[in-house]
């Protein structure tokens, strides 16, 4: 889907989130210069096209007790990585699964899966189980738990211009 200037204005207006008022789409429309009905119509189309992956509550894991946040990285042969990524992402506790470039020699990993849990030991056991189930245990991998959060908020594509 090609984004129109109106779509872009709407997505910009949405960056800080939806206002908590009875008619939030009308407020977005005022910010983006369009009617409430057009906001609703465009958001539905943007969701259908996958530009908006989801519209709803964006939850911070730590605050609801999911304190063990494990970025699990693997070095998967290039001809296998997409199939492995598609399979891993179906596991309920894998929240995000991405392919990224290796940066040799220091960074040999090309597949990233986020696994969140309440407790570190259980997350590590779950990751071992996932690697086993998918026949990945023999591949080079690492688990990077987060130890401190310095910043977490929504993306702001226009931050520099604001």
């Amino acid at each position, binding site marked *: 889907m090609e*984004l129109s200037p109106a779509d*872009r204005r709407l*997505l910009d207006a*949405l960056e*800080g*989130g*939806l206002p*908590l008022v*009875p008619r*939030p*789409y009308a407020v977005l429309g005022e910010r983006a210069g369009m009617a409430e009905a057009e906001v*609703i119509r465009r958001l*539905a189309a*943007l969701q259908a096209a*996958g*530009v*908006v*992956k*989801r*519209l*709803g*509550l*964006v*939850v*911070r*894991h*730590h*605050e*609801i*007790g999911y304190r063990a946040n494990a970025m699990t990285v693997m070095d998967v042969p290039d001809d296998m990585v*997409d199939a492995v*990524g598609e399979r891993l992402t179906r596991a*309920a506790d894998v*929240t*995000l699964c*991405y*392919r*990224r*470039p290796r*940066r040799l020699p*220091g*960074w040999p990993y090309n597949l990233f899966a986020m696994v969140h849990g309440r407790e570190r030991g259980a997350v590590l056991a779950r990751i071992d189980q996932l690697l086993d189930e998918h026949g990945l245990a023999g591949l080079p991998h690492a688990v*990077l*738990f*987060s*130890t*401190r*959060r*310095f*910043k*977490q*908020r*929504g*993306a*702001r*594509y*226009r*931050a*520099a*211009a604001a």
Partner: protein
Amino acid sequence: MVDIQEVPLDALDRRLIEEYQRDLPLCPEPYAAMGEALGVSEEVVLDRLGRLQERGVLSRVGAVIAPHRTGWSTLAAMAVPQERLDEVAELVNACPEVNHNYAREHRLNLWFVVTAASRERVADVLAGIAGRSGLEVLDLPLERAYGIDLGFKPSWS
């Protein structure tokens, strides 16, 4: 993560989190529609969402945009000497283009996401951080995302 307290949630908070991480109603009064589905008033829904935001449980009620559709972003990593971690994390946080920034257990111990309107601007931000810190910054842009982002399905303890 020792510096963030778990926030106690009641049954209504949990239902909001379970049911509305996606598919927020697309009708003129979405919070009233949510209240109707949950058996509470619009006022209660608005009050709850406001408090969940204030307490940091929600980063926002809003949209998660697919990567690289309205701009560019990358995941960046740095190997920061332990005694400089606070200083470098602060320097990274100071960039308005940085939206996530975490310390992780690895030789590469600082991981952050940079988002901007263009690929060039993201590259400038990374170069700026490298220049100001005197440290190398690894650029690991997303090549492919697998699956659909369904949000997060908690099991309450």
